[in-house]
């Protein structure tokens, strides 16, 4: 049966309108939710109920909103760091590990302790923790960076392996030396090591009582601005863009690729480490076994969904923060992970629409 029309797929030659990538990404997200809803229905849940609950759980109150931002903060930092690495086609899947090591190093200030906690002013303690968090993350990012730069070892695998190593490293210390009376966590940090949060101002402003939004979000926003400035306006940003686009051309232009690989990994690691510090000082106030609900992997997805744009990263991390907050309440627990994987998969599938056009043509005599 010959159809009166045919479908032709051809490469685009003209530039795509600016809104297109945004629309395709959004469609991918919506489609992912639909698919997940179907899976939910298949196993006996009620997707509509669940999604409605999502909404109230995430946006229903100021408290919920604050929770979303709190969850979004580490995603933002990690998303920014991963986004920078991805620009150079360096797959930093090790944000999870860098997060844990950053948390660990920051916690050392309190656990050893590295400074006398009673007499040191708060901002100094927090500054030190922040620095150590970033340094720890940077060093942990350095390892895969050097291995990639010098030996061209796949950074995907090394960073993944380092994730498992970091978790075990942390566990050793919190089960052992720093443990709180044999429990799998350290004692709660002294108040001086708590990141300021809005509920601290509850005495003056009643409305802030119970709002756990902490300073970490400011770290994230500042980092986003800095990264944006670097990538768009700086010399280093130009180098990163060039290396990501064509490393051979970058070499031929005299750019030191090895140095840049290591540097970018260190920055990426530092941001993940800072996220770790922000989580232990702003949210859990101790070092424990599970301080990350897969922030490292979700951060990768956030970066990709935001198409490596720092400001889009802010938006997307907010969305994913909502997903995590809402996902806490629903069963089964793997669903949120599934949704995230599906979103990423659909986003990259939809990218094909940005490169190819689908045209439906009337079958003419010439082509029949």
């Amino acid at each position: 049966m010959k159809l009166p029309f045919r479908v032709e797929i051809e490469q685009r030659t003209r530039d795509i309108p600016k809104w297109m990538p945004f629309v395709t990404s959004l469609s991918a997200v919506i489609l992912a939710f639909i698919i997940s809803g179907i899976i939910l229905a298949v196993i006996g849940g009620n997707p509509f109920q669940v999604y409605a609950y999502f909404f109230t759980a995430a946006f229903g109150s100021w408290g919920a909103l604050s929770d979303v931002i709190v969850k979004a903060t580490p995603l933002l930092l990690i998303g920014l760091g991963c986004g920078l690495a991805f620009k150079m086609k360096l797959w930093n899947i090790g944000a999870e590990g860098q997060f844990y090591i950053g948390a660990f190093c920051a916690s050392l200030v309190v656990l050893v302790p590295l400074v006398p906690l009673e007499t040191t002013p708060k901002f100094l303690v927090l500054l030190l923790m922040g620095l150590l968090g970033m340094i720890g993350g940077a060093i942990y990012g350095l390892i895969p960076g050097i291995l990639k730069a010098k030996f061209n070892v796949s950074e995907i695998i090394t960073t993944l392996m380092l994730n498992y190593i970091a978790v075990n490293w942390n566990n050793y210390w919190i089960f052992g030396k720093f443990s709180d009376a044999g429990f799998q966590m350290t004692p709660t940090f002294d108040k001086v090591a708590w990141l300021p949060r809005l509920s601290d101002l509850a005495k003056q402003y009643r409305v802030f009582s119970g709002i756990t939004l902490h300073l970490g979000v400011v770290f994230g926003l500042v980092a986003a601005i800095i990264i944006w400035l670097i990538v768009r306006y700086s010399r280093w940003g130009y180098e990163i863009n060039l290396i990501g686009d064509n490393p051979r051309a970058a070499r031929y232009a005299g750019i030191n690729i090895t140095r840049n690989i290591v540097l970018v990994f260190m920055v990426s690691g530092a941001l993940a480490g800072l996220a770790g510090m922000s989580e232990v000082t702003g949210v859990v106030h101790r070092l424990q076994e599970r301080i990350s609900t897969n922030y490292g992997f979700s951060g990768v997805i956030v970066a990709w969904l935001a198409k490596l744009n720092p400001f889009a990263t802010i938006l997307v991390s907010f969305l994913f923060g909502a997903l995590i907050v809402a996902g806490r309440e629903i069963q089964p627990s793997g669903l949120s992970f599934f949704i995230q994987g599906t979103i990423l998969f659909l986003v990259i599938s939809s990218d094909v629409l940005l490169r190819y056009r689908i045209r439906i043509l009337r079958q003419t005599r010439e082509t029949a």
Partner: protein
Amino acid sequence: MTTMPPDMPNAVEMRNIVLRFPGVLANDHVDFTLKRGEIHALLGENGAGKSTLMNILAGLYKPNSGSITINGEQVNLNSPRDAIARGIGMVHQHFMLVPTHTVTENILLGLRQPRFFMNLPRYDRHVQALQEQFGLKVDPTAKIWQLSVGEQQRVEILKTLYRGAQIVILDEPTAVLAPHEIEDLMHTMRSMVAQGKSIVFISHKLNEVTAVADRLSVLRKGRVTADGISLAGVTKEMLAELMVGRKVIFQVEKKVQPPGELVLKVEKVSALNNKGLPALKEISLHVRQGEILGIAGIAGNGQSELAEVITGLRPCQGRILIQDEDVANQSPKRSISQGAAHIPEDRTGVGSAPHMDITGNLMMKNFDQQPISHGWRIDFASARNQATRLKGTYDIQAPSIHTAAAKLSGGNLQKVILAREISGGPRLIIAMQPTRGLDVGAIESIQKLLLEQRSNQAAILLISEELDELLELSDRVAVIYEGRIVGEVDPQGADINSIGLMMTGAQGAKT
């Protein structure tokens, strides 16, 4: 040339072929006829659509409309398998050989025999027999990466013969051969025709075509400008005009000027290639101000490595002096700071960043200097000024300075690279295959630009596989063979044959 009875059907008849790619009409209602037992040359400059047309015949592309008839029977070629089944074999310009496999394995690729278990020694013998039949010597058990380019081409031809191809298409076969190897190829073609085959010979080189073809057709910008004309009374100038559409002058304006001071001195430099084998063996040469030194040689004799050691992209032993400073084994920035400019042979793979716009590509050399950057920041207004200025000066055809490099044509991309490299008034230019793959208009522009730089007292090292171009542009021509300079000639009155012999190592002489 064998004569065929007049009522024998034509080997190939292509009628009204139309093929569109995104953004370009590659074949515009093309007619093409190949008679049985003839050698038919298909001429046209780069981008004219001749390879595309033959790719259609080989089953790689499907035309949007038009018909193909093989030996009187209309056919639908939906894939290379169909074409092979119909007796069509194509030797591509860029060899389609698997480097890590042996000759025999490459010949057997895609065939249904052997059924399951590979019994290579038996097939090695088959290949050996075929070689003897056509006089194409090559070791069946050798791996492709071990073979010379000429030998690899023989493997490609054997591939088609093994499949019993009666219609053989050769796409720019002489581009990679030395002059006397071209003779051998012509001999092979004649012997193939004597055994009943019909050949299409694609080329843009007028001399070769006139030497061996029975009839020829010319394509220009996708359309036929000469359809199967005989060679009687056809001159080079007529052909050139059919190819380009206007009168082509074969002379370049080159002033005679005495060379100045020494700019580049390469002293006994040795280097390894990517496989760890010696590519340069104590090579020495020098270039002076206002002089073009042409390096002739077949691809793979150390040219790429030579350009790379000079520009700091490859480690080496020995000394490389640019303006009396040794830049060997240092970063590319060092040779750049000594006034070197490098036009790489790979426009897209090395010379440009495809997703970056023209502005970004033009600042690749000076992005870390004033006025393009101040400290850590890049002054984009200044970068845009530079881009606009260079776009005008070098006549780069593109919608704007924000167009991505990947969207530019080959000629315009090469102009971008040249603009970037030359606009800084370099002391030394290393130009590798600067006009490869470009149409005549672009070739003229690029050659003009190089000669201008020569007038500006730049020293130019011109590495090219187009012997004609080298002889036209250079003040001196040196021949490189297996990593050494084996001879030097004066382009005025140079003997092509002796150069050819030097290119294949048969004769080493300094004139």
